[in-house]
């Protein structure tokens, strides 16, 4: 780093690449370039979005009417399980990792990630992990059919044979995530350009730093959890088997010790993205930077100590329930700080409504709604009624679809012109946004009512009084699905187009940060000489 300080090149002047990428598939297989790996992550996530989305549509089609519509209950359970696993581990996490790969070195003025070969490995584990997981769909006997939460003993003593494939693919995903997190944390600690102090670090980088630590804290716990499953299934241990002196609730404690921080892993980078986008399109500095950073750290910390709020109906003692209720309610405070600071950033700004901003505003409204149902869920007595009903399904889709996924859309529209050097079609972007908003609300808003009226989640068929709302949900889901075809078209058009770059370095009028000092698209190697941040 000291050497870098001596150099005084302005970063933008220095993009004569020493060597370009390799040609053909070798470029992608052997790449150690953060931009290539970022692209791989994002494309992988895009493919998985459509696979997981298709499964969601199968689920919704089956639920269009009471009675058997398309598939039998056995396949239905496989679909809900796969949909959950794919969306969480195959779409949101890789997309966030892809954005981190692309943007963190550009935002902190680093030439690449700190551990480029590890970076290659952490990506290339993923396609194999998911092939392993999805291969169970074409095996004889059911694929994993116990929900993405795979509670024991349904997944151990009673699990299908394919559970072992599931266990190993979770191990691979976990290894991939741990390495990616390690890489990101090390990069942020060691590769910042001179002058890029902690107080100047962009919010996206901050939130990924915190996310990285969360991943390092809980991914090994998940690995332990599935290893205990494997031991129970094949080595005659009884970690989770009550008949052998084990404890089915131990499974839930271990799983949710991973699972709750996991939801913050999915949303925290999104908070970072929204902070960047809202500030850019308000043409105003982010309000309350220090509080935003502190709130991120606080959310992550509280997120580690509230896992049992997923287990309020398991017969927990009242003292444990009270502690976890109070701690869970506390999450609302730093989250509130974030929402209020974004509002204050918008206030007295100079606002325009390009597609990234639309998705950020959609996030702001609908994530807040998801936050409201979150507060309601924290109230233990009411949670008795909400738990494992469609109310919970509505809640987590509001925070994951209109939260994490909308944040990813915002990020992609925001940085895509920087990556490709070409502006996407604003008109198509807006169509994508509005169709997504309509589809998303039509699909998930009625689920609140279904849950309150008593519809349990994960049922392949339902009593007659739930028909109306379910039909609405299905229509909404299909609209949302169609909307993503528009997105696919926009992305593919950008990727295959060979027209000349048509955007400036700056791209967006209000954008600030090192990434906007580089050409669009940036050369293969950037910041080989560290920029000096004033």
């Amino acid at each position, binding site marked *: 780093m000291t050497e870098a300080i001596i150099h005084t090149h302005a970063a933008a002047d220095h993009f004569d690449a020493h060597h370009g990428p390799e040609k053909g598939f070798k470029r992608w297989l052997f790449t150690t370039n953060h931009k290539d790996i970022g692209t791989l992550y994002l494309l992988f996530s895009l493919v998985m979005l459509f696979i997981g989305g298709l499964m969601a549509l199968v689920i919704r089609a089956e639920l269009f009417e*009471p*009675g*058997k519509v398309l598939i039998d*209950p*056995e396949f239905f359970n496989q679909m809900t399980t796969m949909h959950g696993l794919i969306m969480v581990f195959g779409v949101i996490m890789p997309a966030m990792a892809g954005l981190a790969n692309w943007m963190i070195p550009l935002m902190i003025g680093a030439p690449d990630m700190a551990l480029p070969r590890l970076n290659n490995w952490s990506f290339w584990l993923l396609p194999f992990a998911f092939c392993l997981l999805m291969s169970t769909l074409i095996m004889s*006997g*059911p694929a994993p059919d116990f929900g993405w939460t795979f*509670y024991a*003993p349904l997944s151990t003593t*009673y699990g*299908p044979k394919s559970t072992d494939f599931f266990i190993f693919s979770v191990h691979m995903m976990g290894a991939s995530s741990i390495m990616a997190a390690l890489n990101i944390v090390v990069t942020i600690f060691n590769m910042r350009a001179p002058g890029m102090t902690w107080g100047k670090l962009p919010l996206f980088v901050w939130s990924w730093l915190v996310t990285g630590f969360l991943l390092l804290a809980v991914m090994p716990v998940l690995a332990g959890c599935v290893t205990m499953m494997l031991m129970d299934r094949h080595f005659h241990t009884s970690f989770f088997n*009550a008949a052998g002196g084990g404890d*089915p609730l131990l499974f839930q404690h271990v799983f949710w010790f991973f699972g709750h921080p996991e939801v913050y892993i999915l949303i925290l980078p999104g908070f970072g993205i929204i902070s960047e986008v809202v500030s850019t399109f*308000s043409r105003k*500095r*982010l*309000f*309350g*930077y220090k509080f935003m950073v502190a709130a991120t750290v606080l959310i992550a910390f509280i997120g580690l100590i509230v896992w049992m709020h997923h287990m309020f*109906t*398991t*017969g927990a003692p009242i003292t444990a*329930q*009270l502690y976890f*209720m*109070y701690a869970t309610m506390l999450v609302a*405070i730093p989250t*509130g700080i974030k*929402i*209020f600071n974004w*509002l204050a950033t*918008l*206030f*007295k*700004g*100079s*606002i*325009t409504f390009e597609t990234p901003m639309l998705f950020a505003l959609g996030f702001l409204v609908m994530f*807040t709604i998801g936050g*409201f149902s979150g*507060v*309601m869920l924290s*109230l233990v*007595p*009411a949670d008795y*009624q909400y738990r*494992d*009903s469609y109310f919970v399904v509505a809640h987590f889709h509001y925070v994951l679809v209109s939260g994490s996924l909308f944040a990813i859309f915002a990020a992609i529209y925001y940085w895509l012109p920087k990556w490709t050097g070409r502006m996407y079609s604003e008109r198509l972007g807006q169509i994508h946004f*509005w169709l997504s908003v309509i589809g998303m609300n*039509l699909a998930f808003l009625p689920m609140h*009512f*279904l849950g309150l*009226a*008593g519809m*349990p989640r994960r049922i*392949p*068929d339902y009593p007659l*009084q739930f028909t*109306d*709302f379910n039909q609405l949900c299905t229509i909404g889901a299909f609209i949302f699905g169609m909307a993503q075809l528009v997105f696919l078209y926009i992305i593919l058009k950008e990727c295959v187009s060979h027209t000349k770059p048509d955007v400036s370095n700056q791209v967006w009028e209000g954008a600030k940060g090192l990434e906007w000092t580089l050409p669009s698209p940036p050369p293969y190697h950037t910041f080989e000489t560290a920029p000096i941040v004033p």
Partner: protein
Amino acid sequence: MHHRILRLILFFTSALFVLTAYAESELNMPVGGTILSEEIYKLHMAGFYVCCGIGVVVFGVLIYSLIRFRKSKGAQAAHFHEHLGVEIIWTTIPFLILVALAIPATIVLGHIHNTDKSALTLKITGYQWKWKYEYLDQGISFFSVLSTTQDQINNKAKKSEWYLLEVDHEAVVPINTKIKLLITADDVIHSWWVPALGVKQDAIPGYINENWIYVTKPGTYRGQCGELCGLNHGFMPIVVKAVPQAEFDQWVKNHHPGNSFTPLQPALNPLTGDALLALGKAQYEKNCVMCHQANGAGLPPSFPALKKSRIVTGAPDAAIAFVLSGVPGTAMQAFGEQLDDQNIAAIMTYIRSAWGNSDLVKQQKYSTVIQPKDVAKVRQGSKP
């Protein structure tokens, strides 16, 4: 362009309102018919109104900003970017609101945990995919199984009013009595959930969880299993009938062991082959069809085929013993505890005759017909 989008939004929101009005009664959590369900409902509404209040403020400021500070209307960005005072305000006020919500939640939670002074104890056990009710003080115990037919599920018959919410034997409870519920499971985790009774409690193998009900309004309360428990998670409803004390006493009298009816009463009278087949088909459709399927092909390898099965078509005693004691660690339960000799004999007769199995049975010089006394003999032999 903008007008078209606006019209689209208008269309969908109005569609939403029309449908909402149509299904008005199912929009919200039921107030329910117990002391607890009413308390929970009030807490739920308190939480909802607080969220609405905060929503009005947050979305109000948001909408105001988006309209007032548009660049297209010439808005210039201000330069402020921090203010300690407002940060403290929007940390403190939410904190106080949360404290205000936590207080009633804590009180109601205390009530839920207070199972003292109950007058009746009902033990509930979840099985794949049925519930067992045991009235510990009255010595009554029975299984409660979905009574919706396969034809309704497969759209071959008109669906009844309580499609998927009806059972063969309802749990009957007296009103105005505090009833303690002891909830557990035999195989995987289930959850006993009746919204209008204000109870959702997980049924976990190796644990006995407590909850209680005090029903104030007589009537029939319906619910479903709340925790994914395998293939037929959606097909194990709960029906609780709350009746006045006198009616409950009468029900207890009718159901007392040794009186006119208990589900496990052995019926040993021999039946004709046709009668056994008819009863067997009905019982098969109630107890077996969800896993082994109507055509006997099962869903292998989790749920083996009965068609051409060596066990089914083999020696009668071995086949009966298999059904009586089940296979531990699978959904194949010990049906000896759930069905009487006559029903098991009928089911055995049916599965040994159907799907071409009768040929295989006859080739081995066995009889397809199994009589209740055959089952009783095996049952006696298996007792230690």
